[in-house]
């Protein structure tokens, strides 16, 4: 079976997000939102082959922890997970 998933990775809340702060400063400067809280992350859309849903989730978990993120500074969220065929 083939599954598709969307994974969001972002810095943990206690880590300073310099990119987010840069965006926030621009939002203040152009008058759209003053001192907005902005956090920037990455989105991964990927497909995995697995025998069933559990196996797909296990594989996905390994991909996330071994490749996509570093749990020392980042967190993840699987925002979509569905069977393609």
């Amino acid at each position: 079976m083939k599954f598709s998933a969307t994974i969001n990775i972002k810095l943990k809340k206690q880590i300073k997000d310099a990119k987010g702060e840069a965006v926030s400063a621009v939002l203040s400067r152009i008058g759209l939102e003053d001192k907005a809280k902005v956090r920037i992350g990455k989105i991964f859309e990927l497909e995995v082959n697995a025998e069933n849903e559990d196996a797909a989730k296990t594989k996905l978990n390994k991909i996330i922890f071994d490749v996509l993120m570093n749990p020392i500074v980042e967190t993840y969220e699987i925002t979509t997970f569905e069977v393609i065929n």
Partner: protein
Amino acid sequence: MNLASISYPQTGLKAAIAVFLGTNCEKETRMALEMAGFNVEYIFHTETNLEKFDLVVLPGGFSFGDYIKAGRLAKLSPVIESLREYVKLNKGFVLGICNGFQILCETRLLPGVLIENTKTKFISEDCALFFNNKEITIPIAHKEGCFWADEDTIKQIEKNDMVILRYKNNPNGSINNIAGLYDSKHHVIGMMPHPERAVLSQCGLADGKKIFEFLKTELLNFKKSCPTKNLSKKRVE
């Protein structure tokens, strides 16, 4: 400048420079190591036999384009798997410079992680640092060079004397001004500054030599104190 006037002492120490797709500092690293007396070989990131080397260097650059995050994809290379074994079995020393430091942190051979500089800029400048309680100046050139670790890890780092280099003016926001680290055994070294770019006084800076000379001395002492390493040396000879 007359490069022929540079002397290359012979120490018998063998160093490997691991070249990844996107590495770009291997040539100057080779020259700096040779000036310190190392016999140097390039190895590709698919190499798995590190047996004959006293030192493995992960040089600067942008391995695998730094895609996802600096060092993230390089940590999955075959050479890194062998490097874990190399470190575990005390086969020799490891030096990671800039991208090499990022790779060592991603692989957990060194604690903590390098995140984006607090000012988000790519910083390229000569940088004042403290090395063995003395001030030296070595160039830095990075965007993800802000060292971060949780409180407990920082306590361990300080308690075990694992900081090899500190920034004087902390240009990137690193915790405790950390610019370079040892592992707990002092066999694995990672640093954001580029000592290999400061080994010729004719080019303005030569403080990087102090790092390579220090490394050479430490390695020679390590080999003297390590009987298995001496045995393997005899076999090779």
